[in-house]
């Protein structure tokens, strides 16, 4: 029995997460790092609903980020779509119900997303006065860890929300 997931609910969750990211998450910064709810959701949709949903979530999340950020336009669309694709492709090979798998997948996806972002930004903008180790220890690792820790609390809520124990299938 496949449970169809409403596409509107999928978008509402992404937009709500985006608003929280835009308006509230700076208040819970620890040592300058804040969790990335959008990366967390892209990985969630990718591992539970497949690569297609991962890319779709990545595209929407990336577009929202690019529209409201001063980041290079398109960078987040491409990187989050790729994150969704890769997490979705890895998902069938892993035991996705395990909390450890979910934690590691969110952590690794976030680290890779930010490292590729660093190199792509350096290539496009040419000059950067901040080195990769500075970024790695000052921003990438703390915020990826923060995001992965948050996934331990949010994934069970989302799993319950989408009734995923019934083998839900996205659209």
């Amino acid at each position: 029995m496949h449970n169809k997931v409403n596409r509107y609910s999928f978008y509402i969750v992404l937009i709500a997460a985006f608003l929280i990211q835009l308006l509230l998450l700076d208040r819970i910064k620890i040592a300058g790092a804040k969790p990335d709810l959008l990366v967390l959701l892209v990985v969630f949709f990718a591992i539970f609903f497949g690569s297609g949903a991962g890319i779709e979530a990545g595209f929407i999340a990336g577009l929202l980020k690019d529209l409201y950020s001063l980041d290079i336009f398109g960078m987040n669309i491409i990187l989050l779509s790729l994150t969704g694709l890769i997490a979705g492709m890895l998902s069938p090979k892993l035991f996705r119900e395990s909390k450890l798998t979910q934690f590691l997948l969110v952590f690794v996806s976030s680290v890779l997303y930010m490292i590729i972002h660093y190199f792509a930004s350096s290539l496009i903008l040419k000059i950067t006065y901040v080195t990769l180790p500075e970024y790695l220890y000052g921003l990438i690792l703390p915020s990826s860890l923060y995001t992965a820790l948050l996934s331990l609390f949010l994934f069970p809520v989302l799993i319950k929300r989408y009734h995923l124990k019934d083998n839900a299938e996205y659209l």
Partner: protein
Amino acid sequence: MRNKKNKIINILAVFVAVILVVLMSSAARSVRINITDTSAPLLKSFHSFFGLIGKLTPFAALKEENRILRDRVGLLTRLAEETKAINDDNARLRNLLDFRKMIPYTSIPAQVIGRDPSNWSNSLIIDKGSSSGIKTNMAVISTRGLVGRIIETGKLSSKALLITDPDLKVGVLIRRNRQGGILTGSPGGRCKIIYISLDSDARPGDKVMTAGFGSVFPKGILIGEIEKVGRDQGRLYKYAILKPSQDLSRLEEVLCIIR
């Protein structure tokens, strides 16, 4: 077979996304400004709503205790807390107004209505745009020091790049020894001063202010305090890590300097 077909479709979808992005990037700037502008009133109301929740939360325990003691007293306490929050707002805005009168520049006050959703860049969305006189490259300050610079301006909203963003560069002076350097953002909510000469005696605790070179930042605005001074191997200059004079993630009002 079907699985393989799905994978190919997914990879193709990413390529289509890439092509779309490349096509959109030239028009992106104006689209981005227009979208931020259109959603500014909505963001402002969401911001006020979340702000109200934030103000009431610290008093929740007190209210609960009062509710147990007497329902009526509880109600009055809540009213008192709301009045206190309004008074706090009033005091903060009065402080901003006094500061505005005190500084030697003409400025436009603005409210922060949003923040950068990415972990990568550090910026603020403010509720004033070109219709209020905001222009790109205006310096943004608060009562406690430099905040950043206006980068994008719409009609009703603008985006300011913060001093903690690595893309922002500011000419600075160390107040004690008048030695200069370039300030740029650094991860972890800190800033980094580069190009400090090797013979500089800069040390932790030194106050840093804007040097006033160029036409963006007026001279003498406090930025923060040096936390650490160091030297990278093989470099001819020292660097310093600076702690901004305020917590930029909790700013609520700013002033945009007209000059």
